[in-house]
Structure formats: structure tokens, C-alpha cells
């Protein structure tokens, strides 16, 4: 019987394991291998020649290759940090608004919030580029109503990246709100009743019950938000092309450009490997941080 199951397991796993092995793991290993090679993306893999750590030295070096990569790495870091810093608190606040039972309409609010997550990023980028339009866009008009002067949004190096963060937050926050609601429904109501009897006010209950018990959910949300944020591509490719003056040149956009337009396969692979390593470091650090908090 056990032997027969082993054969069935093989059959059941074969399609998924083959597809993921061939189309995800193999190209990933190729990228790692190519990061140590000099290779033009327009030639076969067999043309690659070993250069040791040369590509890594170059992308962190003082030439324009190094400057551009370090800028892209920094831009992606800022973009990711800002996205997470905005999405997590907002998802908890919105989650509380949906979860509360004092005022009706929570489910409707959830629907509205979550619907933006279904919108293709290309459409989001197109629509927001018009919303941000300095003269014909409604954002500056609305700011004018409350006495704030017109903002340059996407057209200034100081505000372009944060403008893209904002459209990303708008699109994604509904998904994370649903995650937060999932976490909130897990907290037993009896905890709040006991706290009320002990005279704890709303703010104390939030700080000593809600937040600590949401820690696992927030860790999960943070990891997903980071993974999503490093993939930002459409608004940059479509609207800013990395500008103005490199201020929105993020890693996914930059790595693709180096690989396709400049055909520098070794350099783009080294950059991709650094992206992977940064992600692993970042996510492990998050887990370590939350686990230490847990053991306190």
C-alpha cells in the first residue's frame, strides 16, 4: 500500500514540480551562474566567460554602472520602506473600521477598499498620472481648496518617488486591510471585556491587546508588502522612465533595462542576485525581530 502511494505521490507532484523546476528554479540558478560570467544577453549561454566577482565589483564600483545600480538600490529601499510604513498602519486602522460593530457599513467599506487590488497596475499608473497632472489634475485643485499650493508630483525629483509610493499604497492597502481583519477576528472578545472591567480605556486596549496579538499578522503583511514593493515596474516604465534625474529608477526597471537595452547579462544577473540577497537578509531580520519580541 505504502509503495503504491509513493508512486501516486510521484504522479501527483510531477506536473507542478517539473514546471516550477524548469521555469522558476532553473532560470534562477542560471541567473546566479551568470552573475559570475561576462555574457551578452544577445548570445547563447555557451558564450559566457567566467569573470569571478568582477560583475559584483563593477555594480558597487565608482563608474556609472555602479552609481546607477546604487541609486536604484537606494530608490527601491526608500520605496519599499515608505510603502510598508504607510500600508501597515493604514491596514490596521481600516481593518478596525471594517471590523467594528457600532456603525453599519463595514462590509461595504471592505468591498470598496479591496476592489482597487483588482485593478491592473497599468491602469492605475495611467489614471494616477492624470490625477497628478499639475494643471488639469484634481489633486492640485483639491489642495488649492484647503490653501496648499500646487505640487509638482511626478515631475520633480523630490516628489516623484513618493508619488509612486502613494499610488501603490492606494492600490494595495485593501488587500492588507483584509489580512488585518483576519488577524482581528482571531482576538477573543473576552480579552476586551476583561480589560473593560479592569477599567482600561480604548487606547490602552489597543496598545496592550490589539497590537501585540496582531504581531504575527503584521509580520506576514510586512513580508508580502516588501515582496510586492520590490516588484514595482509599471508606473516607472509607463510614466517616469526612471526620471526625473533617476529619482524613480527602481531595481526591477533598472535590471530589465540593463539586461534588455544594454544586453549586459552578467551585470544584470549580479544585480538580480544582490536583490535576492537583500530580500533574504531583510525578511530574516524581520522574523528575528518579531521572534525576539515574542520571547520577551
Amino acid at each position, binding site marked *: 500500500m505504502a509503495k503504491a502511494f509513493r508512486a501516486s*505521490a510521484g504522479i501527483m507532484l510531477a506536473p*507542478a514540480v517539473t*514546471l516550477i523546476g524548469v521555469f522558476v528554479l*532553473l532560470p534562477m540558478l542560471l541567473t546566479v551562474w551568470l552573475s559570475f560570467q561576462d555574457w551578452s544577453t544577445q548570445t547563447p549561454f555557451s558564450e559566457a566567460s567566467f569573470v569571478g566577482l568582477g560583475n559584483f565589483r563593477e555594480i558597487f564600483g565608482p563608474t556609472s554602472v555602479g552609481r546607477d545600480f546604487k541609486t536604484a538600490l537606494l530608490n527601491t529601499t526608500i520605496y519599499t520602506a515608505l510603502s510598508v510604513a504607510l500600508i501597515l498602519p493604514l491596514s490596521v486602522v481600516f481593518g478596525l473600521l471594517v471590523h467594528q460593530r457600532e*456603525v453599519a457599513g463595514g462590509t461595504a467599506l471592505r468591498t470598496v*477598499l479591496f*476592489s482597487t487590488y483588482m485593478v491592473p497596475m497599468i491602469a492605475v499608473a495611467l489614471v494616477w498620472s492624470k490625477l497628478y497632472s499639475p494643471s488639469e489634475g*484634481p489633486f492640485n485643485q483639491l489642495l488649492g481648496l484647503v490653501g496648499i499650493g500646487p505640487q509638482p508630483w511626478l515631475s520633480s525629483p523630490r516628489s516623484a518617488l513618493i508619488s509612486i509610493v502613494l499610488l501603490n499604497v492606494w492600490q494595495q492597502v485593501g488587500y492588507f486591510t483584509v489580512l488585518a481583519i483576519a488577524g482581528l477576528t482571531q482576538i477573543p472578545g473576552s480579552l476586551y471585556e476583561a480589560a473593560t472591567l479592569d477599567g482600561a480605556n480604548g487606547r490602552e486596549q489597543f496598545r496592550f491587546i490589539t497590537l501585540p496579538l496582531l504581531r504575527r499578522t503584521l509580520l506576514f503583511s510586512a513580508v508580502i508588502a516588501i515582496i510586492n514593493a520590490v516588484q514595482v515596474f509599471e508606473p516607472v516604465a509607463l510614466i517616469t522612465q526612471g526620471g526625473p534625474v533617476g529619482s524613480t529608477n527602481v531595481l526591477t526597471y533598472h535590471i530589465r533595462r540593463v539586461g534588455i537595452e544594454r544586453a549586459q547579462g552578467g551585470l544584470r544577473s549580479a544585480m538580480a542576485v544582490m536583490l535576492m540577497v537583500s530580500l533574504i537578509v531583510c525578511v530574516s531580520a524581520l522574523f528575528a525581530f518579531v521572534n525576539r519580541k515574542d520571547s520577551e
Partner: protein
Amino acid sequence: MSAATRSLARKRPSGRKALLATAMLLVAVASAFPLAWMMLSSLKTPAETMQVPPVWIPHTPTLEAYGKVAGVINLGRSMWNSLVIASVTTAGILVTSMMAGYAFAKYSFPGRSLLFSLLIATMFLPPIVTLIPLYRMVGSIGLNASLAGIIVPNLANAFGIFLMRQFIAGVPDELIDAARMDGASELLILYKIVAPSVAPAIAALALFAFVYHWNSYLWPLTVLQGNADAYPIVISLSRLLSYNRGAVNTSLVMAGATLAVLPPLVLFVFLQRFFVDSIVGSAIKG
């Protein structure tokens, strides 16, 4: 307690309610505003889209822009391509995820948790990392610049396997054993016993996969290499922007965006319960 304090005690919660309701309304309006603006702008005349300060509600709503979209891009073809890409990919993901999810949930075999962890790790791999080697590989098997090239590499993914394993693990072993006693094959059991028991999760995965692949941009853009006949709607949409760049085209772009947004949005409105349940399920069980 005096009458005054009693009325104050009643008033405080109602003030709180008003505050809550206002906050909820503000959040909903802010969230709905960009898409509302998109749809309103698609109905404006070209002159209205250029006006300063901007016009919010079109004075003479017109569907003219929608007619023009079909003249600039091959709208029917793009929508059809998107439909083919999203549905075939989704069908593949459902089959591969259910099979693998069943194996991980209900069989014990050597290396099970190691293999599972390895597959799950790919969930965290940004697509840009594999983009160029994958592009070269797909080219070497002759699938470049075709719908098949977009679809084939995406027929299995870790998220689907993870979701299916979570839900199939909850199917009682007795059900499966009883079917085995009756001599049913494992594939038949998966199809006749397991699949109906996890139908909501399958619906959720189908919707996730469909929306994700309807919206996907980076991979089709790379693999198609300018073959306009195979463009999905999101790529055709990005071409609308470069059409008449700088001239009057806002209502055109907004009409195109509205058309691209509608299919996933309509699916979501009807089936959001499954989306929400599966997110909640995967987050809690994960």
C-alpha cells in the same frame, strides 16, 4: 446620576458613532475616487479633459472615446488574448495545484517537507530575477512572441500549491479511505471526493489566478517582443498613452483603462466572498 450627565453618557457614544461613520465615509470616498475619476473622464469631450481648473462631471457625457479606442488599438483581439492567457493559465494552475496540494496534504513520502519548503520559497522570488534566462529558455523552445510563451511558464505556482494543501488537509481521511476501499483511483478520488469538498478554495484560487494573469504586464511585455497580434489588453493600453502623445487623448486613455479594468472588477464584485475567505484562510493557517 443627574439628568444632565445621563444625557451626556448617551451623547458620547453617538458622537463616537458620528466620528466613526465620517471616517468610514472618507476612507471609502478616497478609495473609490481614482476609479470614479477614470470613468467620468472617459465620458468627457476632448476639450473638457484639457480644461483648467479640471471639470469633474462631464456636461455632455459622450461615448465617443470608447469608439475611438477600437480605432487605435485592436480592442477585440487584445481582450480575446487577455481572456485566453488568463483562462488557460488559470486552468493549468488549478490542475497542477490540486494534484500537488493533494500529495503534500495526504501522502507521506521521503523529502516531503524539504520539497514543500523549496517550492514555497519560489513564492518570494521577484520575477525580475529569472526574467532574462527564462526569456532565452522560452525562445529556445520556439515559444517567443506567442501566447503559448506567456502561458506555459506560468502553469504552476507555489501560491496555488500552498493554498490547496492548506484546504485539502482539512478533508477527512475517512472519506478518502472509503473511496479507496471501493477501488477508486487516486486521480478519480481527487476529482470526485476532494475537489467538491474544497470547492470554495478552488473558486478563490481560480479568481486570484485569473485576475493576476489578466493584469500581468512585465512577462508578456518581455516575451512578446513587439508582436502586436498577441498583445493582451494591458499592453495595448500602455500603447494608447504613446498614441498622440501630448495631444488630446485623456478621454481615450481613460476609456481604454475602464475597459481593461472592468472584467477583473466585475468578477470581483460577484465573487469577492471567495477572495476574502481564501486570504483569511491562507493567512491564519499559514
